[in-house]
């Protein structure tokens, strides 16, 4: 029950830190096995705070892995798969690969491209569901700094998503200068910033 409720959030958070779906699967498994061991061993004493506790385990494992990878880097592609796992894509056309990149995967790519401080807060708040106060304590900053970083993370994502949408549309509907289309989302994207 708890596994099914939290697996997706925790898995996404781990993936966004380690940027490799296979490693994220392993670390998700390690996270829940650690949790099960503590619970079965009668050492669980975080009453009513299961997700924040689970999140801390997942975050620690992901950060440990990320640090060890910095010492032994591997080639991982933008979608989180490893280089050799994608060899079968080589026969597909560029257009097919482009179409595979839907909004969701583009958003995940944009999250990974955020400045580290913003990305960390976003993962911890949105996917690991830590409170802003917990994030501030964990990262050694004030709560206002944590709130500010989250705000900039969302603003940056919105901006990049709208830029990306425009570029994406141009790829699907290439235009000649004499066939310039009327923008479908006039006024969106760069207003007010």
């Amino acid at each position, binding site marked *: 029950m708890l*596994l*099914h409720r939290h*697996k*997706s*959030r925790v*898995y*996404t958070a781990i*993936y966004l830190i380690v940027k490799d*779906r296979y490693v*994220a*699967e392993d670390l*998700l*498994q390690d996270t*829940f*096995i650690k949790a*099960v*061991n503590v619970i*079965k061993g009668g050492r669980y004493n975080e009453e009513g705070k299961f997700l924040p506790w689970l999140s801390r385990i997942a975050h620690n494992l992901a950060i440990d892995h990320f640090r060890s990878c910095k010492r032994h880097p591997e080639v991982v592609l933008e979608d989180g798969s490893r280089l050799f796992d994608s060899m079968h894509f080589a026969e597909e056309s560029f257009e097919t690969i482009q179409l595979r990149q839907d*909004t*969701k*995967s583009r*958003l*995940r790519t944009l*999250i990974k491209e955020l400045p580290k401080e913003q990305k960390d807060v*976003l993962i911890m*708040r*949105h*996917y690991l569901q830590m*409170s*802003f106060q917990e994030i501030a304590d964990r990262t050694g900053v004030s709560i206002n700094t944590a*709130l500010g970083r*989250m*705000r900039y993370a*969302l*603003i940056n*994502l*919105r901006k990049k*998503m709208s830029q990306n949408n425009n570029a994406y549309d141009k790829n699907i509907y290439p235009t000649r200068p004499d066939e310039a289309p009327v923008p479908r989302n006039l006024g969106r994207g760069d207003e*007010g910033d």
Partner: protein
Amino acid sequence: MKRLYHETSVEETREIDKALLLDSQLQRQYQEMAAIKKELDEARLEPSDATIKNILHYAQGLQEHS
């Protein structure tokens, strides 16, 4: 941000909601943030069935031994 993530007290929520009603620019910014928050939810990934099965098998194995 705190309002967006439901971390405000009842009183703070009331004050912020009042401000949102009176300030259309603030309201627009809030709606944009809420929209991207929704997209973040939709961008979640699912782990493979094999991983879930491994975890469940492990937990069941422990239960049988205890």
